[in-house]
């Protein structure tokens, strides 16, 4: 009421500006009639009018009431009046919120975090799953070709990388496609000398830009004339972000020369902002394919087993994806294509239309669902806070209702308040969203190109929508209570507010939050457990201290010279501080694979496990040590096992068991490689020398972190590095990379090792050095994404729920001060009182945890497929979530409990 008095002058002024003829008529009529009556009784006219107004009471309030009634009666307010009313409501809400800044801040922060999280997740899901790569015109007509293969043993697999002849085959299907283009993505060198850096590029055929309908920000696109065999034009189109970063957005860059892979290229254009071709990762340079492949010889253009390109095509209008796929499949079966090629599938670049769904996308979709739950929790929490506030203002509101403020007005006022809070929260939330999605992109989905806009319009819309919905919901909860007729009881003096049923509503809301939190925490626990198990599984080796380096001599050293240089570099690296060893490698798990033809005397088919030929590793003794190859029987390699010495081989358990069942493998013979004078066969010919098995070693993981399918029974064997099956070319190269063991953090050591390699060589040398773990990382990423985000969102939700719990417990304590005072006066000890409060908090949480656990158990089958070696109903995880929440509840109740125990009986009993 005090506000009414405080703001009366202003309201009267507003009233005078408003044309409210009817309300004024009715009031004026009454007052004048009353004044006339008084004048008739002998009162002086001036005094009569003053008395008549005094008798009437609060003119402004009645005027509002009459207004509301007129509206109710169907007389529409003019737009101007509505706006005026809105402005008035907003001003009122602002004033009343300003009186409780802590509450307003709490609500805004809650909303900002929840809306930010929701918007960030939605943005990522949109980018990963819903939106086509940016910059493509009419993306619904553009498709990426996916080749389906069926192996001899019936296993199906798909690949998007294929050969140039396959591209030519598809390009001939002009009835189905208006344009077909191929591209080859690679990291290439940009610049010269010490400042040269690796940049991401795609080399494209002439139709690429037109097939995608891509535009440039500056200059021109690449066209067919740029990509003529054999060498193409030395021209390059810069990626927009790269142009900004490297050239500072200089418009004069067109026509200038840059050095790409040690050759001069002329910049002819800058791609449109955000355009990354048909990819989702950032592209720095676009080059003509023939120009980029210049020094690779011409074989890639004619050989259909050299898989170097991916294909995009624009479908003609009226051609369906199915029809196009059928035409493409026919073309390839009739023309080129391998024996195993079963068909071509054209997948729309709009992810929602594609049948494919990556693990990443699936987890992203889950996360967006989860972020909606967080928003729901936040909404419940805001509702709790507003409810507490409403209860504090109960008396005031009851008085207003009794004095005739219309319910409609009250509803409007309360909704205005919560919507105002939600809007401020949404505004702040957008910044949270931007920050959060940058963090996620940087740490969890590094190959996803960042959006160049601050906020995507769709994300903005969704977050505003979410804010409005949340604001409405949160605002309605206190209304449901205030609008009850019993409210008038509040007018009776001394009536204790906070009767059983309000605290029931608050407890329900807190219980709901806790239940949702439980579900989230169980989810987080399951993902963390999965990630933990997938990381700690025994791969057969430990890559923690290993670096992996590939070295590029820019064509200066070839074949055996290159191999010798690698050996020399490895030797010198061992002198570098922090490096405990280095060795050359040809193939390694999760890296390069070498699967040569193989045969075993007495078998007319090559040994296979699950249809898979054995994988060969060329191993130096150091390699065996670094990769922790564990000997079971026989011996490992040593310095004796060189080129020219007797051929020896180590086989893994699976190979020993499957190839020579019931026998010892030691001393057996295998042949591997090709006799180059004969046509290639999957069976190594008898003309090759026998390699004697000298040892059996443990199985290890080679390609997949998931021990599923072929990965569970993998035949592997090791040959001494000097005894790699020979290539007919005497000057062939066998070394593909270096494996380096370091004593410190591999992440920190990588650049030091790179400098050591590049600095030590007289010939131009470029090294790419990364932790071995990076080879495994792409497979870990979905789990890490799930674990990190579920945990983050779970922690966020828990913090929000803790705030709500704290609010409710504090409120209950303040309501029960008198009772607590009595208890203390009657000899209750502070610890008994504190225990009472803590039990109250635990009780509230217990119900929520129970409900949440039930939901988690019911939802378990839906998440099971995304977990690794973890049951979706794992008891430890559920118990952990329950314990954590109970702990949080106790923590949230500690301060109110402490306050309760310090209530002075005297003041408590005197109050009210």
């Amino acid at each position, binding site marked *: 009421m005090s506000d009414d008095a405080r703001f009366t002058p202003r309201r009267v002024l507003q009233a005078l500006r408003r044309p409210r003829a009817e309300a004024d*008529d*009715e*009031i004026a*009529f*009454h007052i*004048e*009639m*009353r004044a006339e*009556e008084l004048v008739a009784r002998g009162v002086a006219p001036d005094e009569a009018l003053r008395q008549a107004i005094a*008798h*009437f*009471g*609060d*003119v402004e*309030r*009645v005027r509002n*009431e*009459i207004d*509301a*009634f007129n509206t*109710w*009666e169907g007389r529409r307010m003019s737009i101007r009046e509505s706006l005026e009313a809105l402005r008035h409501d907003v001003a009122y809400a602002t004033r009343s919120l300003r009186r409780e800044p802590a509450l307003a801040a709490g609500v805004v922060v809650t909303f900002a975090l929840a809306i930010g999280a929701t918007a960030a997740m939605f943005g990522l899901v949109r980018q990963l799953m819903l939106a086509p790569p940016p910059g493509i015109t009419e993306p619904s007509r553009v498709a990426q070709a996916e080749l389906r293969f069926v192996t001899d043993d019936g296993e199906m697999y798909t690949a998007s990388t294929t050969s140039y002849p396959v591209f030519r085959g598809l390009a001939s299907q002009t009835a189905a496609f208006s344009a077909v283009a191929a591209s080859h993505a690679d990291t290439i060198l940009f610049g010269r000398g010490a400042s040269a850096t690796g940049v991401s590029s795609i080399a494209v055929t002439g139709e690429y830009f037109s097939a995608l309908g891509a535009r440039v920000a500056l200059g021109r696109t690449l066209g067919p004339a740029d990509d003529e065999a054999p060498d193409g034009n030395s021209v390059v189109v810069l990626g927009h972000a790269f142009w900004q970063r490297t050239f500072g957005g200089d418009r004069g860059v067109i026509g200038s020369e840059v050095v790409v892979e040690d050759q001069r290229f002329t910049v002819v254009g800058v791609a449109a902002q955000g355009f990354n071709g048909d990819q989702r990762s950032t592209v720095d340079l676009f080059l003509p394919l023939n120009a980029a492949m210049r020094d690779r010889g011409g074989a890639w253009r004619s050989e259909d087993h050299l898989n170097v390109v991916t294909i995009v095509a624009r479908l003609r209008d009226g051609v369906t994806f199915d029809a196009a796929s059928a035409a493409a499949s026919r073309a390839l079966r009739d023309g080129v294509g391998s024996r195993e090629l079963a068909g071509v599938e054209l997948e729309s670049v709009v992810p929602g239309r594609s049948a494919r769904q990556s693990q990443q996308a699936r987890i992203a979709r889950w996360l967006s669902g989860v972020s909606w739950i967080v928003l729901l929790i936040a909404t419940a929490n805001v509702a709790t806070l507003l409810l507490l506030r409403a209860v504090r203002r109960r008396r005031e509101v009851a008085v207003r209702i*009794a*004095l*005739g403020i*219309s319910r409609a007005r009250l509803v409007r006022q309360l909704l205005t308040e919560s919507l105002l809070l939600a809007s401020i929260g949404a505004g702040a939330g957008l910044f949270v969203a931007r920050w959060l999605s940058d963090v996620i992109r940087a740490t969890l989905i590094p190959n996803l190109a960042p959006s160049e806009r601050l906020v995507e319009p769709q994300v903005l819309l969704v977050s505003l929508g979410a804010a409005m919905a949340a604001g409405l919901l949160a605002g309605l909860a206190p209304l449901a209570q205030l609008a009850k007729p019993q409210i*008038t009881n509040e*007018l009776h003096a001394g009536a204790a507010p906070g009767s059983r049923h309000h605290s029931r509503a608050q407890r329900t809301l807190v219980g709901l939050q806790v239940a949702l939190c439980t579900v989230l925490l169980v989810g987080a626990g399951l993902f963390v457990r999965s990630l933990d198990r997938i990381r700690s599984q025994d791969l057969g080796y430990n890559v923690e201290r290993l670096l992996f380096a590939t070295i590029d001599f820019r064509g200066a050293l070839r074949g055996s010279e290159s191999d010798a240089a690698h050996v020399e570099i490895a030797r010198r690296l061992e002198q570098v501080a922090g490096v405990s060893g280095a060795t050359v490698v040809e193939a390694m798990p999760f890296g390069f694979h070498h699967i040569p033809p193989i045969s075993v005397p007495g078998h007319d088919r090559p040994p296979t496990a699950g249809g898979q030929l054995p994988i060969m590793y060329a191993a130096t003794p150091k390699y065996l040590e670094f990769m922790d190859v564990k000997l079971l029987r026989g011996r490992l390699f040593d310095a004796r096992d060189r080129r020219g010495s007797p051929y020896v081989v180590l086989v893994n358990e699976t190979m020993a068991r499957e190839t020579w069942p019931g026998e010892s493998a030691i001393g057996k013979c295998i042949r591997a490689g090709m006799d180059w004078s004969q046509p290639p066969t999957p069976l190594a010919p008898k003309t090759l020398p026998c390699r004697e098995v000298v040892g059996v070693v443990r199985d290890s993981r080679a390609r997949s972190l998931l021990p599923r399918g072929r990965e569970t029974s993998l035949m592997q064997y090791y040959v001494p590095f000097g005894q790699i099956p020979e290539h007919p070319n005497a000057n062939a190269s066998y070394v593909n990379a270096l494996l380096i063991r370091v004593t410190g953090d591999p992440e920190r050591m990588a650049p030091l090792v790179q400098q050591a390699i590049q600095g030590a060589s007289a010939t131009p040398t470029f090294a790419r050095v990364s932790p071995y773990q990076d080879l495994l990382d792409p497979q870990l990423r979905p789990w890490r994404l799930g674990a990190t985000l579920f945990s983050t969102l779970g922690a966020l939700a828990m913090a929000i729920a803790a705030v709500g719990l704290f609010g409710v417990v504090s409120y209950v304590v303040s309501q029960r001060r008198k009772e607590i005072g009595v208890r203390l006066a009657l000899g209750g000890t502070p610890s008994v009182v504190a225990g009472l409060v803590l039990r109250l908090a635990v009780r509230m949480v217990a119900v929520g945890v129970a409900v949440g656990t039930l939901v988690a158990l019911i939802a378990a089958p839906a998440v099971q497929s995304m977990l690794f070696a973890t049951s979706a109903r794992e008891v430890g995880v559920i118990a952990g979530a329950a314990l954590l929440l109970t702990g949080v509840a106790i923590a949230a109740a500690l301060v109110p409990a402490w306050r309760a125990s310090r209530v002075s009986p005297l003041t408590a009993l005197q109050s009210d």
Partner: protein
Amino acid sequence: MTPDVEILRGTLDVILLRALTQGPLHGYAISRWIRERTDEQLTIEEGALYPALHRLARKGWVDSTWGYSENNRKARYYRLTAAGRKRLLVETTSWEQYARLVSRILEPA
């Protein structure tokens, strides 16, 4: 001065319904009627009549039309509906019962 009796909420509704049994009246006429019936001993903020009347209108017990007063001034007239009449009967009965019980309790034994 005569003692002021503050009108009990809920009672106001019965009083208004009763006032309108005389026929359509505007707000001022109702307030004058109440004052006359109670010898000016019952004080109400006259403005409070209007929210009360509107509440009754929303419940369907009263409806209103604009008309002109005795001295040809524009005024809103309130009229009892059939539902209002029924309501008045119920309210009056229960009110009388209540009043009887309360006065029986208050009577000296």
